[in-house]
């Protein structure tokens, strides 16, 4: 056994300004994916420079504050709508309304889409029936359904959830189908030889084998749902983050529009990060078959 000694990267290496470890002595790094891990220094710089530009544009009045308000007035407005709310609805209530729509639409999309994908991956009959439907609806952007959804279900809560459900459904069905189809035949054969029943093969081989792809599907679906949400809330709603920025725009409250956009970005990143944590915790075997 080789002795493992702790090698501490230098500060420059931590900031991504110098290579260390096995990469340090490489002579060919252009095109070597393992040698390009990013530079934290320049990441910090790019965010910092953007922030400074934003601040400067307001401070030196490069732009009209009605179109691009500065960080200070945006922050003030943020505190105001977080505490007192905008049109008597607090920021938290807007977010809760949006999140609950996401969870319902995405959740039902998973509950229907995953079994649908499994059915399509396991039976020629069911695959034959559902393939044309899924393949047809997959490339249609969920927004294209808005007029029809309004015609059929009005502008209530159901319509928004339905739209998000449609956004998640096809993604989940296809992810689950490809997860099922990715199982190695030798694993299935091994399980049958060890005395597993069909149900046990499904439960103990095909399902865990499909989990990594289902998770990737969930991450994609959650992202698409989040992106569809703002549009869904344009259908008309009392509360919701998308509705908030839409109404604020009509009243020329650009600060609120900017706050909404930043929050949508931050929450999107947070959701993806949470999914990745969950993934590492639930399926540590991902990519190691």
């Amino acid at each position, binding site marked *: 056994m080789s002795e493992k000694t702790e090698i501490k990267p230098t500060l420059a290496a931590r900031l991504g300004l110098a290579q260390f470890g096995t990469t340090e002595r490489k002579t060919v790094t252009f095109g070597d994916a393992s040698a390009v891990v990013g530079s934290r220094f320049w990441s910090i710089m790019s965010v910092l420079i953007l922030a400074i530009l934003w601040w400067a544009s307001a401070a030196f009045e490069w732009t009209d504050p009605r179109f691009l308000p500065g960080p200070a007035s945006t922050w003030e407005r943020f505190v105001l709508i977080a505490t007192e709310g905008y049109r008597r609805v607090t920021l938290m209530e807007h977010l809760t309304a949006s999140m609950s729509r996401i969870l319902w639409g995405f959740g039902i999309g998973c509950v229907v889409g995953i079994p649908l994908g499994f059915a399509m991956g396991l039976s020629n009959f069911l695959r034959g029936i559902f393939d044309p439907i899924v393949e047809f609806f997959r490339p249609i952007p969920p927004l294209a359904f808005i007029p029809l959804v309004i015609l059929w279900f009005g502008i209530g809560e159901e319509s928004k959830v339905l739209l998000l459900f449609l956004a998640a459904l096809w993604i989940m069905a296809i992810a689950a189908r490809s997860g099922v189809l990715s199982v*190695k035949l*030798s694993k299935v*054969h091994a399980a049958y*030889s*060890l*005395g597993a029943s069909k149900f046990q093969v499904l439960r*103990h081989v095909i399902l*865990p084998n499909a989990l990594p792809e289902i998770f990737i599907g969930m991450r994609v679906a959650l992202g698409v749902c989040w992106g569809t949400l703002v549009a869904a809330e344009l259908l008309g709603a009392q509360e919701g983050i998308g509705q908030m920025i839409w109404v604020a725009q009509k009243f020329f409250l650009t600060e609120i529009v900017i706050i909404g956009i930043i929050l949508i970005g931050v929450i999107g990143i947070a959701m993806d990060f949470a999914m990745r944590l969950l993934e590492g915790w639930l399926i*540590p075997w991902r990519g*190691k078959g």
Partner: protein
Amino acid sequence: MQNLVAEKIGMIYKLPDGSQVEALKDVSFTLEEGRILTLLGPSGCGKTTLLNILAGFLAPTSGVVSLSDRKIDGPGQDRGMVFQQGALFEWLSVEENVGFGPRMNGRPAAETKKVVDDLLDIVGLGGFGSKAVYELSGGMQQRVALARCLANDPDVILMDEPLGALDALTREKMQGLILKLWKETGKTIILVTHSVEEALFLGDRLFVMAPRPGRIEREYELPFAAQGLEVNPRELKTSKEFIEKREEILSLIWEMEEEIMGSRGEVL
């Protein structure tokens, strides 16, 4: 007797373009309990097809296979399988992999644990039970595969190139382990391999198979597997007898290759 009997097995694959391939033709043999048979031959000779028929994953187009007079018509626990690699369940730990069969059969957990611990000791993986399979080397993974297959106490063990993906040194060690398991458990084993040396060393019977149509070209009864554990394997593999047999079989396979590929000159 738990004899494994194949009677006039034929297997014809229909291709999408309407043509047919005769993967196996008139393959007949009787393998007595406790023998270890190796199958050797160029690619396309039907050895994996034969193994899949014996495992019950494929139904032959003609003929019958049976184990102790019971017709084989599907996979069953009386026949364990060991695959080349990647057939372990990476979402389960080493001991959960080994205990998979007993668990599927609803055996009590305590009994399963004892079986699993014993088997891990036998294959040299005592203390590795709680590891994830992807943390193990290729050789150790194949040890897990052997233990998993033994946990159900099958009558016959079918191995499809079990050592094919291992490096030379690990491969020799694993050959020793297979011989040891064969001697100690008295199981009937059928092993498919691409290596002439491995087929000679591990088989107390050996079939050289030929392609188009897939068939048994020549059969050997061999002494080496029986001696394999007593004498030094390297000495055995370099003995005059062993080398003579090896060259004989190699030239037989070369002849087949020439028939398929044309003259030897084109290949070299």
